């Protein structure tokens, strides 16, 4: 029962703040709403029992990416700036695409996804995750881990090259 209450609170937070985040006309506010959405998603991970994902989501998204966003917003605009009103010519196709997609996906979810009610609750321990991340057998992920590290290196070099002063 408690889990259901927590889930519905988090779901309402996610739905409300994700819609506010794309409709708010002040950029800094929409970044803050996005921050709430990301935190509530981290809460859903915790509710599902994935503590490691919760930690990654909070430290990478909330601690890293959102700080980057807020710094770049403050660099590129003034705090009280409002974006221009969205014109109908632009609003109509965007709203149409979003609502049509929402209806199609909602139809598919509620008519074709069979409703799994009971789940075997497995607790995930960190040792299992660690061995799976560092092994080379089947269902182990050393190769993508290394690929990510090369990608991050390329990203660091690219960031320095792009953003340096000439």
């Amino acid at each position, binding site marked *: 029962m408690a889990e259901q209450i927590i889930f519905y609170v988090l779901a309402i937070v996610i739905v409300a703040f994700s819609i506010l985040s794309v409709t708010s006309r002040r950029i800094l506010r929409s970044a803050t709403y996005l921050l709430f959405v990301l935190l509530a998603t981290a809460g859903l991970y915790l509710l599902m029992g994935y503590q490691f994902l919760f930690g990654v989501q909070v430290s990478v998204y909330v601690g890293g990416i959102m700080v980057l966003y807020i710094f770049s917003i403050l660099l590129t605009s003034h705090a009280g700036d409002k974006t221009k009103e969205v014109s109908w010519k632009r609003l109509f196709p965007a709203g149409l695409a979003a609502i049509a997609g929402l209806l199609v996906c909602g139809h598919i979810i509620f008519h074709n996804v069979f409703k*799994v009610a009971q789940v075997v609750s497995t607790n995930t321990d960190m040792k299992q995750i660690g061995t799976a991340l560092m092994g080379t057998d089947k269902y182990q992920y050393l190769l993508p881990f290394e690929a990510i590290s090369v990608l991050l290196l390329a990203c660091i070099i690219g960031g320095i090259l792009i953003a340096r002063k000439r």
Partner: protein
Amino acid sequence: MSNIPLAAYLAVSTVMFFAGVYGFLSRRNMLTILMSLELMLNAADLNFAVFNKYLYPGQFEGVFFTLFAIGVSAAETAIAIAIIINIYRNLRNINVDEVNKMKF
């Protein structure tokens, strides 16, 4: 984890995804477009974790996919923000319909 249906999680992530689609199509500031992109990525990540939990409990494929997707999206965001700040430094503007200097 007892009796929250799978469809409830999927409904939440669907709303999040299409809020991102709406923002991606209607916003004109590059940073807000990037934030909408972040919403969509986040919804996809949530879907991976949920399907892993409900359909294959005891395995970790969805968790690791989410993990790597978070890493890739962090890299992508850092590079995109570097490009945007560079554009701002050169053109003093980051609205997508006013940045057209490289068009011809």
